[in-house]
């Protein structure tokens, strides 16, 4: 699963700390999400998408290889 968090954040000039604060996670979690090391839970994905005013699928890109 890839995501557009870094891209959306840069477009809107939001720092990782600000995003972390808004969605109630640590900055390290945002760093891990952006680098693709960690996949967000549905709840966190929903919070991040809502923060950007987008649908989850517009932020998190699900690929067929991700399917179990």
């Amino acid at each position: 699963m890839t995501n557009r968090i870094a891209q959306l954040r840069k477009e809107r000039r939001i720092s990782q700390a600000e995003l972390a604060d808004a969605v109630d996670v640590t900055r390290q979690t945002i760093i891990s999400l952006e680098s693709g090391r960690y996949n967000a839970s549905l709840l966190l994905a929903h919070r991040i998408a809502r923060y950007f005013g987008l649908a989850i699928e517009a932020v998190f890109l699900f690929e067929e290889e991700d399917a179990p």
Partner: protein
Amino acid sequence: MKKRFFTKPWLPGLGLGVAVGLGAAAVVLGERLANPVSGLCFGLAGTLGGLSGSRLIMARFDRTWTPEERKEIERAERDERNVAIREKAAYATWYWTLYLLWAAFFLTLVLGSGFPTALVSVIIVLHCAFYMVNVNRWSKQL
């Protein structure tokens, strides 16, 4: 929400006092106490002293934190990535403990000692039984 171990602020102080009392009693009474009782006193004193002491130290740090720092620490505590890390670490630790127990079991077999072999076997069974109990418990909750 997890319950804190010490909910009352005076409990760690009381715990430390009891620990010191138990330790001192075991030292003063010495030979007059039966070995298991003496061991129990030292064991309880160590456990209680460790828990209470660490809680007192944490409370000391707690007072020095600014509201922002406290907020950040609380966030880190419930952060879903940190929770996932703790769960993965606990899962891996369960297996490592099991391998260590099996190693200890075979070592006791090689050394030909009866009671330690039986003891390690019981611990292995309990280790696996607790796992199954928790699997059952969580399968009902999730």
